């Protein structure tokens, strides 16, 4: 039973693995729309070209450029943090948003609509699974350390800064060019910011692709998948390339970009798989903690209740997206899981 859950979780991971590159690269290249609306027709073709190139280059591994990933993402975090901070300094009241009372009030005031909004909020933690999935490459401590000292502060400054920006010009949200991320950027720096954001999202996509390769490898090792051709792209352990997975992902990502055409539309199908994986991970973790570490039942009950309450709220909210096309990642997840169980 637990194994079936794990397999289904891995299947959902592939479903997400297709959306991450599509939504993130589209949103970064989408900054061109803020540079000038006359550039908006370039967004979809440019995104497709970038993503196709990324998949074609997979077989060479990341050895030659891999060392750039860390510094580029670090620069990205520094820039979004500073841009957010600039906005927060002008409207420091937005820092009150860190208090949980505002979240509670929002949920109580808006009821069903607030619950539906959770389907949007979940986008902020897509990719959380990677903290754990990449444990084997970096170890627990460097991952925890960077999360608390760099990533969490940087993204929160950006989120709060965007909030302050929305408050300073509320009418802007109904404009078709509404883009609180890129509208924080001074006009002269917009093009470099689009380039930096695109680089960051290429790195994010690379991580999603690499993650799919390693999940596939683990599944083969555990006997859940037939033996796939796995190419080692460097002598370092972990640098692998799985051609079949690469081309399935490539086809899926390109289709998503061409059909949905904007990150806002893709937001509608992103989240079911993510929150499904969260729930499965919580259940598996509780089972492992109980069986291997004999954690007292009351502690597991407290943790399980906290996590599952949040996750079930998110999951059910995301289920409402199924009508918008969220059955796609779920379908991919189901197909992959069926192949693995067979």
């Amino acid at each position, binding site marked *: 039973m637990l194994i079936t859950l794990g397999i289904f979780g*891995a299947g959902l991971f592939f479903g997400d693995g297709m959306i991450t590159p599509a939504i993130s690269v589209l949103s970064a290249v989408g900054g061109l729309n803020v540079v000038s609306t006359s550039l908006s027709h370039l967004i979809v073709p440019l995104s497709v070209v970038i993503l196709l190139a990324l998949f074609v280059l997979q077989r060479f591994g990341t050895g030659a450029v891999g060392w750039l990933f*860390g510094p580029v993402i670090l620069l990205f975090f520094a820039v979004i943090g500073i841009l957010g901070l600039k906005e927060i300094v002008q409207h420091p009241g937005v820092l009150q948003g860190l208090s949980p009372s505002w979240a509670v009030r929002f949920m109580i005031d808006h009821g069903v609509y607030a619950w539906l909004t959770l389907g949007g909020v979940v986008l902020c*933690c897509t990719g959380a699974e990677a903290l754990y999935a990449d444990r*084997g490459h970096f170890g627990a*401590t460097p991952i925890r350390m960077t999360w608390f000292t760099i990533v969490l502060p940087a993204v929160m400054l950006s989120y709060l800064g965007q909030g302050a920006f929305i408050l300073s010009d509320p009418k802007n949200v109904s404009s078709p060019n509404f883009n609180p991320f890129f509208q924080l950027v001074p006009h002269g720096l917009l093009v470099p910011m689009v380039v930096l954001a695109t680089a960051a999202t290429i790195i994010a996509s690379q991580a999603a692709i690499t993650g799919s390769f390693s999940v596939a490898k683990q599944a083969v090792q555990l006997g859940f998948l037939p033996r796939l051709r796995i190419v080692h792209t460097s002598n370092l352990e972990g640098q692998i390339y799985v051609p079949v997975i690469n081309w399935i992902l490539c086809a899926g990502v390109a289709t998503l970009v061409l059909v949905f055409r904007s990150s806002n539309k893709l937001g509608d199908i992103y989240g079911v798989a993510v929150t499904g994986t969260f729930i499965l*991970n919580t259940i598996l973790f509780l089972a492992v903690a109980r069986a291997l570490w004999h954690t007292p039942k009351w502690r597991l009950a407290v943790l399980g209740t906290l996590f599952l309450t949040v996750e079930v709220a998110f999951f059910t909210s995301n289920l409402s997206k199924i009508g918008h096309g969220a059955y796609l990642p779920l379908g991919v997840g189901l197909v992959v899981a069926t192949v693995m169980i067979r």
Partner: protein
Amino acid sequence: MNGLRRRRRAQVADSAEGELKENGSSPTRPKQSFNEAGHKLGYWPTRPDARVKEIGPSAALQAASDEGRDVVAHAGKAVLALGALGVVYGDIGTSPLYTQQFIFTAHRNAAMPDVAGVYGIASLIFWTLMIEVSLKYAGFIMRAHNRGDGGIMALTARRVPRC
């Protein structure tokens, strides 16, 4: 900022090493706790016993077959942390590109551009990150691993009976 981080990192490493040296009489592996880097510095087989060495498999082989064996990283911590930034946080770190744009476009019925809406969304985002990422993944789930590997397959593997 950078200097401070480096110093903090050094302290973490020192404290783990210090624990070993100070309790030198018992060469046991320090207990893994939330903020401790001891398990990254190497693997110490518990109570190396000369007799076991003679008759049993080598310590290295024993270490390799230990279920609880964690990753042993040889790169410097700063290098690892920088590498982790790119690979681990690309996805969650680029979410600010589209999250609020999506929320304030697709959920206008609740997420209105007023104080309650903006603070409410900021608060929901912050607490979602705190509960799901800080507490669940960084805090708890990270403790479970399959010979250092994480991920849902590793968690599943811990439940697969071994021969």
